[in-house]
């Protein structure tokens, strides 16, 4: 008898808990009943779906992984991933709304906010009464986020905020903006701080929604801050720690983009399987041809691999262990797997896949944000190169 076997502990588990299964099933039921039926029409109209977002909020999906004392549902990051995947399976735009609201805007307040700030802002955000928008990117600073030009200058009890932010998710429909600004121009990243800004304050000018390739019903807009008076109490986190916190928020955001990518890729596979069974050519369903079978097998393998990477990153976050590398790996692989899957899904659908009669062309357009948002694939490789060099002793 191998004694090692007897002593083996079974900490590593690939099974979802009962909580996780219930969350997955209830979100799936909800999405199939209320989200999936009109998704093609909504995509065509390109309007923010206030009604469905309100219904998602009533289901508790806008505060899924925030603490119950702040109005959240109190579940873990894996639960968050399950929910995002289920929504993204049918409606990636909606999943993006939920993910960005939850993990970026609200996530930054949950991470760095004082007790007072959390009590003041989070209940409205976790219940979806208000939507959060996280304002980092500027026209001149994207991947190099530290190069931001927005400034906040101390003026007695207030900070005076000036600058332009762009590509802001919930930029035109949001109520609570978390804004990154330079508070000490003499310092580099350590001169950046974060602020909580309310939409109806003087000088806050949300722009009109941008026209995009995909993610049509997710709101993206420019937001201009013009001499906005921000009370001292709305400085979020320690002064000079805005960029450090931003990096942490982005790590969490990457898990969300990973889960979203898994959802899109799963949609691509499920729709392809359905079509391959219905579509007959040369006297048999095209799913019987090896050329189609192999494409779908590749999708299935990559979806599973991507999902496991996403779950690992989520698990590490829940264990409060470092997860920068793992989140970046999950985001990179899942988004590129979704890219391959959606391209193949359109190919499997042939001419029909190129039309708006089927879901896969939308999946392809929505997918493209996955390799760009929350750090492009190129930036993920930059981060990962540093991480693996560190791990493998390149720098020592």
């Amino acid at each position: 008898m191998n004694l090692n076997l007897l002593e083996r502990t079974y900490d590593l588990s690939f099974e979802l808990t009962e909580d996780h299964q219930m969350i997955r099933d209830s979100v799936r039921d909800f999405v199939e009943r209320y989200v999936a039926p009109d998704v093609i029409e909504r995509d065509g109209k390109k309007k923010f779906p206030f009604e469905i977002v309100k219904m998602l909020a009533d289901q508790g999906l806008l505060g899924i992984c925030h603490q119950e004392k702040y109005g959240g549902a109190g579940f873990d990051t894996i639960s968050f991933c399950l929910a995002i995947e289920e929504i993204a399976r049918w409606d990636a735009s909606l999943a993006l709304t939920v993910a960005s609201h939850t993990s970026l805007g609200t996530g930054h307040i949950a991470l760095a906010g004082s007790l007072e700030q959390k009590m003041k802002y989070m209940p409205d955000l976790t219940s979806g009464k208000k939507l959060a928008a996280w304002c980092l990117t500027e026209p001149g600073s994207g991947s190099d986020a530290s190069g931001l030009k927005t400034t906040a200058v101390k003026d007695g009890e207030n900070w005076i905020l000036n600058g332009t932010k762009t590509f802001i998710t919930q930029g035109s429909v949001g109520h609570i903006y978390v804004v990154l600004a330079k508070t000490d121009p003499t310092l580099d990243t350590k001169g950046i701080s974060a602020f909580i800004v309310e939409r109806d304050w003087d000088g806050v000018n949300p722009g009109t929604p941008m026209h995009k390739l995909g993610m049509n019903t997710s709101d993206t807009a420019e937001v201009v801050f013009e001499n906005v008076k921000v009370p001292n109490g709305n400085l979020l986190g320690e002064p000079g720690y805005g960029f450090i916190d931003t990096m942490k928020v982005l790590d969490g955001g990457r898990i969300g983009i990973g889960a979203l990518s898994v959802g899109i890729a799963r949609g691509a596979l499920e729709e392809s399987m359905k079509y391959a069974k219905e579509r007959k050519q040369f006297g048999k369903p095209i799913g019987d041809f090896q050329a189609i079978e192999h494409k779908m097998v590749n999708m299935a393998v990559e979806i599973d691999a991507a999902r496991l990477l996403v779950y690992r990153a989520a698990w590490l976050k829940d264990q409060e262990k470092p997860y920068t590398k793992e989140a970046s790996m999950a985001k990179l692989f899942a988004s590129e797997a979704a890219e391959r899957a959606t391209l193949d899904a359109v190919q499997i659908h042939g001419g029909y896949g190129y039309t708006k009669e089927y879901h896969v062309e939308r999946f392809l357009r929505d997918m493209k944000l996955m390799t760009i948002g929350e750090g492009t694939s190129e930036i993920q490789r930059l981060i990962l190169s540093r991480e693996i060099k560190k791990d493998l002793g390149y720098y020592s």
Partner: protein
Amino acid sequence: MKFYVCIKQVPDVNAPLHIKDGELIQDADRNILNAYDASAIEAALVLREKHGGEIEVVLIGTDKAKETIRKALAMGADSGIFIQADTDVQFDSFSYAKILSTFFADKEYNFILCGKQSQDTDAGLTGSMLAGLLDLPYVTNAVGLEMTGNSLIVKRQGDAGQELIELPSPGLVTCSNDMNDPRIPNLKGIMQSKRKPVETIPVNDLPTDSTAIKTKILGYEVKPAREAGKKFDGEPDEIARQVARLLDEAENVV
């Protein structure tokens, strides 16, 4: 008001399943709350929202089926009774009714709600048999419930139309899935369901006659595919003649 809702776990008929050697094989192994029972829970929740009261769900099943109690609690039921059965015993409608009647014998309640049938067998017998065993007045195939005083006004779908029937407390109702659109548990409900009480009673603790099982499923068969219909070509009057001739020649038609 105290409501009991009898619920059952059934295979998800929308998930892939097939029949092999007379056995039902669930490829996806997905089990769900019987849809008719979900409507009964929803009806009880709506009555509780309007008139107050307490809802307890009762389920007979193996350990695997216990998760379905949690689903009911996540929808909003207050507590659950899990009547734990062995995996190798196959109950039929009468034995389910008999076990439940033993459980209910010393309980106080206003109404017992059941699904009108379960999606796995579609027998539709347990609710009526339970009412019979408990000597309760009952109404089947309910599509609407309203409370007046201590009675329920039950709208039931009859053969000729909808009937309104007053059912005094205590009584039993079997619910149609046409009655409502059962709510999907929200995340707070799922979180709270973990803290709600579920009492486990081994089925052998409920003294039930061992001869209660009256019927047995011998096996499952795939329903034969429908034969292709006959197509007629030609001018309308010629087609009509062809059809008339066919009907005339066919037995037991015209």
